[in-house]
């Protein structure tokens, strides 16, 4: 069978922040948003093999072979100089994995896992891989009790969601803002499809969690919080809503000058949403 492969920027064996329980997480490379506030900008683009990173590597882990940038993990000490110099927000350390390799890893870690999550970048830019992987897992006698989750920005259209949902147990979906102009400014795209995805996934019983990033002066203003409250109330007051706090690590460009979200303000907004009727609002365990 000719199964798709994935471009992966990182695999984690243990994550307690990517869905229920402990999850193996695949961070797929590539994103269809260009968020000013992105904490992992090096996951946005696929490498175009320009080679600018090769001389920047202090340990000689990068080389040009046959016109392609090749990364040698055994020589890499994770200094991330290559990410600094990359002109297109990509990452020469991205590697290709097959479905079989992922299954082997999941099988090995299975005693520790409640499930797996694909994240990004924007995971759904590699939808065929996700559909194939989840499909195989759901057919596997030894793996089908593991849940399969997607972490998404919600830009995927409904017909495409329909192709993967039969094999998907839940989706964690980010809403960047409710004001369409602000959404455009923050992400480079409008938000109609994001809001439609949230409604559709909820109607299908697959919306595990909504996530909302609080950026001071932008997404934490009263008008946005009111719309967030109305939107979630309209779906279900008991929906899991996770508030995230904008911080600076990893951020590039103008967002470095934005103020970080402070714990007191985040907790105040959480209280306001709870008073408004939401029963499952979570705030960050740490601010870093």
């Amino acid at each position, binding site marked *: 069978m000719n199964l798709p492969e994935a471009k992966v920027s990182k695999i984690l064996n243990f994550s307690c922040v990517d869905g229920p329980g402990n999850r193996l997480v695949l961070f797929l490379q590539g994103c269809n948003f260009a968020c000013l506030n992105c904490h992992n900008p090096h996951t946005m683009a696929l490498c175009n093999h320009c080679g600018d990173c090769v001389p920047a590597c202090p340990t000689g882990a990068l080389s040009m072979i046959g016109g392609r940038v090749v990364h040698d993990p055994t020589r890499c000490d994770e200094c991330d100089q290559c990410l600094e110099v990359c002109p297109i927000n990509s990452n020469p350390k991205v590697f290709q994995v097959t479905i079989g390799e992922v299954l082997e890893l999941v099988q090995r870690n299975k005693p520790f896992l409640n499930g797996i999550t694909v*994240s990004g970048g924007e995971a759904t830019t590699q939808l065929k891989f996700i559909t194939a992987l989840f499909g195989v897992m759901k057919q596997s006698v030894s793996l089908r009790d593991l849940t399969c989750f997607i972490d998404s920005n919600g830009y995927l259209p409904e017909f495409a969601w329909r192709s993967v949902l039969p094999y998907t147990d839940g989706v964690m979906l980010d809403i960047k803002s409710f004001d369409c102009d602000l959404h455009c400014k923050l992400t480079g795209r409008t938000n109609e499809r994001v809001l439609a995805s949230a409604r559709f996934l909820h109607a299908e019983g697959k919306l595990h969690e909504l*996530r909302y990033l609080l950026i001071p002066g932008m997404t934490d203003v009263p008008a946005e919080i009111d719309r967030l409250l109305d939107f979630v109330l309209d779906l279900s007051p008991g929906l899991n809503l*996770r508030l995230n706090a904008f*911080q600076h690590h*990893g951020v590039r460009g103008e967002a470095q000058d934005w103020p970080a979200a402070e714990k007191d303000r985040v907790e105040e907004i959480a209280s306001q949403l709870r008073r408004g009727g939401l029963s499952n609002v979570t705030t960050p365990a*740490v601010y870093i």
Partner: protein
Amino acid sequence: MQELQARFKTITEDPSLSFSQKARALSLEAENSLAYPELDEDTARALEERVICDMYEGHAPFKPRYVMPDYSVVLKKGSEFLELEPAQTLDEAINSLMIAYHHVPSVTNMPVFLGHLDDLLLPYCDGVSEEALYSKIKLFWRYLDRVLPDAFMHANIGPSDNQVARAILKVDSELKQVAPNLTFIWDPEVSSDEIFQMACDSIIECSKPHIANHPVHQPIFDSAGYGIASCYNALPLCGGASTLTRINLYEVAKRSVSVEDFFQNVLPRYVDLNFRLTQVRVNHLFEKSRFFESFLVKEGWIAKDRFTAMFGIFAMAEAVNELQEKAGVAGRYGHDDAANSLGHRISAALAEAVASREMEYVWRGRAMLHSQAGLSDDGGCTPGVRIPYGSEPDPVTHIQALAGHHGYYTSGVSEILTLDETIRNNREALSQLVKGAFSLGFREFSANISSNDLVRVTGYMVRLSDIQKFKESGGSRINTTVLGAEASVTGAILDRAPRVIAHEFTRG
């Protein structure tokens, strides 16, 4: 003599010691002014060079290192020596235990084992309301922490799901005291999912309890059972351990020219010397100290023939890395399959050596292998078989690397997993991790929840290099936030640390 008197004087006038600490320091000085039990030349030299170590237990062992009384004896039969009647009510039972603890010695002079508290107290709980039980346990817990402030004092609960175990977990996670330490004994056939999850939730609150894997421990012992004391020592109940001696595997590796020399010559030599040291100390306890003439034996709290000898090792990580270097291979302990396998081979060799050496005055005639947690001044050496702090891989890889050791260390493995604080928002992740570890043969599970560099925040990765840069660049506002968050989480415990200390970590 003048020198000794000068030391006594320094202790009595030391402004940093409380009066009870002075009394303890004086008694240690007095004991250590006696001649050491007679050692042969080779053993004495190995001890002097600290390739083998007596844990600075003192020159004249007059009490076992760990005493694990069967406290049900004093509850059911009372005590003639202590003039106690059998307990009739829960108040009397708790009161008898509080009295009993004061008469149970150990290496620290404080009890290291408080009993299987749910088994002990349940017979007295008929007709006691949940509220009454909760408030009695709370006062009991406060007493233990304030009067016997040693973090190695250890209570056991489980495997059954019962009202006493639940009350203890509730009180313990509320009070967040350093003492007593607590182990929940888990048996998937007996423990309910609810009590297991309560134990995991409590770990997130206060890094306690430790969870012991009953199906792994139970077959090692007999029908009288076992208890977990101090720093995860599994020992025969109604007995304990006479001594704990240990080998510094790093020092052994340094004295070996090659991997084969290590296995063929140098390790067997120091294993032998450590056995000799152990036997000499055990002999002194049994033949000279008269400890076993105590009322504890006469009344049946402990039995003379139920004391094991703990054969400890530490610095496995440094030993493996040293041997890898000598073999000219790069892989490091905890991260490389070949290095991890070499570690497992060392553990197997040690287990074999311990199983084949007959010992006198020792339970079942054999010592028990132990992965030892370390002393406060083991500079440069990693406790037991642990992976060096700061270089641990992710928790799953960490457990997979160490699981192969656990079967060998029948008297316990001291291992602590550091988990980042994001787990507070996802309790199920912790219980799954514990179950995963136990399915691979982990004997005990201990976790510390703390801020560390590997923090991940919802939905995205934090790269180590980012955190590094971030720290270098200052960012005072956020640093303050981080420090503030840390302080609020750990502050209660930090405030208490100077008063409640882990006596066992300090040299005698």
